């Protein structure tokens, strides 16, 4: 198995996307071929493959090729289900907090510009 030096934040980032969460969830039931796995997703295959690449890089899944068929499976040691659950929750709140902070900083800047205009 590849020797991965992946940070926790990479795992969070990998899980912080609805499509990738769904892929991980689908794989909880066992390994699947890429084409089978992609079926329920309403997106072009190249986009789907990009999500798989991100998941593979994070160490959450691994893929193997037999003939022309590529198969995906979860890497069991990467995260237990309970840990995964917590990681998913953290990913939701970390990303929400990041969006909120960016929004508030922008809001504050706009208020300041507005105030200084009013003073002139």
């Amino acid at each position: 198995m590849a020797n991965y030096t992946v940070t926790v934040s990479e795992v969070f980032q990998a899980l912080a996307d609805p499509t990738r969460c769904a892929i991980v969830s689908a794989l909880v039931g066992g390994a699947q071929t890429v084409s089978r796995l992609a079926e329920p997703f309403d997106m072009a295959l190249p986009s789907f493959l990009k999500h798989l690449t991100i998941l593979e890089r994070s160490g959450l899944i691994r893929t193997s090729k037999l003939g022309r068929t590529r198969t995906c499976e979860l890497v069991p040691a990467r995260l237990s289900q309970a840990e995964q659950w917590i990681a998913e929750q953290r990913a939701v709140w970390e990303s929400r907090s990041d969006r909120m902070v960016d929004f508030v900083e922008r809001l504050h800047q706009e208020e300041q510009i507005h105030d200084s205009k009013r003073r002139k």
Partner: protein
Amino acid sequence: MTANDVNKAANKATDNAKPDDLVISRGLRAPRSALWRAWSEPELLKQWWCPKPWTTEVRAFDLRAGGAFHTFMQGPDGGVSDNPGCFLEVVPQSRLVFTSMLTGGWRPATPWLGFTAIVTMTDEGAGSRYIATVMHPDEATRKRHEQMGFFEGWDTVITQLDDFASALR
């Protein structure tokens, strides 16, 4: 409640945190008043609540203890996430507590995802400090969620760090 009390409360929330609780902290250049606006005005809240291209509809926002807090999110592929809840504590400019375990008027609920979130806002330097403590049910409840096919529900859950973060940098 004074700002100092709120500080103590924030520390207390952090101190009491169990290993499984999420404690998320951010320092901001913006003042507490801006933070409060982003959380207390639904028109603003819905702009950052979920990642694009998902959209948030605020179906109820009764900002008082026992008031309903209900968000409904929709994704581009038809996925939805319905999240009714209830405010437990509202201290303007400093503290918001809400839960998914109750709906408006403290009516008990059995949500697909049980949690209580404590959001605190304090002054820090010229800016402010934001701390969110999110508590979830214990391991046994979590296991039950899994048995109930909880993981299948995950495709409707909204999170997407990349887009927003990279679009803003």
